[in-house]
């Protein structure tokens, strides 16, 4: 039901044990060299030059290869050679499981197909993000997974509106918030009415009525919902090679007053409509690079 990676899927299916999976991951880690390790293996740079490049990266946001070119340790052509070799030598987890004897080729083929079918529910749909906003594919994915989880986890029937850039978040009774950090820096905010909070709580708690539940439990259900969304965003981003982490969810105490977008941030607002016409919003405060 969630975004998964292939190794996790085959363990859950009982096709390989967790010990076998760890053995395959160890083999992958030994085989799939990082850029710096690969240039040393190819004899293009010394470990001293590697250290100097890492040091320079602390002062300027450049990828390792670009920085090594800037410092004169590599040519642009050599960077391409290293990238090609990395790509050609890359060992995927399925191949590693075959190499250690945990799966046969025929089994791998079957499980890859089953995995693809299992994850079909999370194939992204195209969502337009206004031009000029950094890391657009990530925010597309955030909105897409929010919509999918609203349908699958919160059991809501929704319609979505186009994304716009806003200066201030409209006043709402309840706003739950989480942070993304790592490769991107942003805040994820879900603004809902009391009615929508109840619908989400019913689904999360698996109860037919939440009338007698304390506000704390209702709020907590909304926080858990955004935790599920953001956790799955991190998993999906990892599949695409991005390293992102999350901070625990919290409730905004200033939701009623409307929230001004912080300096040096762009706020993307995605309106979401329920079938009865009620509207609520997903907003992402994206920190400018």
């Amino acid at each position, binding site marked *: 039901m969630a*975004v998964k990676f292939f190794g996790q899927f085959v363990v859950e299916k009982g096709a390989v044990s967790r010990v076998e999976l760890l053995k395959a991951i160890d083999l992958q880690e030994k085989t799939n060299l990082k850029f710096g390790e690969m240039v040393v293996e190819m004899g293009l740079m010394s470990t001293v030059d590697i250290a100097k490049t890492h040091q320079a990266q602390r002062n300027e946001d450049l990828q390792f290869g670009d920085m090594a070119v800037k410092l004169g340790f590599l040519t642009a052509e050599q960077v391409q050679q290293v990238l090609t070799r990395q790509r050609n030598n890359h060992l995927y987890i399925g191949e590693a499981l075959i190499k250690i004897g945990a799966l046969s080729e025929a089994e791998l083929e079957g499980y890859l197909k089953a995995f693809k079918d299992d994850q079909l529910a999370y194939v992204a749909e195209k969502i337009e993000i206004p031009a000029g906003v950094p890391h657009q594919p990530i925010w597309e994915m955030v909105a897409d997974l929010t919509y999918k989880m609203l349908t699958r986890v919160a059991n809501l029937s929704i319609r979505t509106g186009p994304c716009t850039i806003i200066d201030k978040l409209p006043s709402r009774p309840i706003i739950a918030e989480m942070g993304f950090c790592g490769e991107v820096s942003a805040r994820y905010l879900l603004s809902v009415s009391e009615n929508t909070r109840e619908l989400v709580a019913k689904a999360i708690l698996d109860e037919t009525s939440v009338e007698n539940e304390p506000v704390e439990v209702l709020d907590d259900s909304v926080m858990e919902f955004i*935790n599920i969304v953001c956790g799955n965003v991190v998993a999906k981003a990892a599949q695409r090679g991005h390293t992102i982490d999350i901070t625990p969810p919290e409730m905004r105490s200033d939701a009623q007053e409307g929230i001004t977008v912080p300096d040096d941030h762009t706020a993307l607002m995605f309106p979401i409509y329920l079938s009865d016409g009620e509207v609520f919003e997903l907003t992402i405060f994206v920190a400018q690079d």
Partner: protein
Amino acid sequence: MKKVLIVDDSIAVSRQLEKIVNSGEEFEVVAQGRNGAEAIKLCQQHKPDIVCMDMNMPVMDGLTALRSLSQLMPGITVVMVTSLGGVGDKYTEALRLGAKDVISKPFEKDSVLEMLRRV
């Protein structure tokens, strides 16, 4: 009857897991904690057979608590229940630190019970 400890900062998730665990005839929830530090204290107090623990929690996260528990109580059965289960690095780190399994959120009742029986 197997004793189960639930550790999650979300009251909603703890409630959901408690309902699922208690619906399995062979399991009983003996205590609930809200962060990794409470998990360590409650493990020493209740000696549970299985610990179901979240990863992303305030005060002390689940992986830090798992690392401590593996040293303090070797052989303890810990299962991570997390929205980050699909992140390969986190999943691998949990298994390397001694977790017996990792369940991704959102989860289904049957898959949780099946996993508890398996571990």
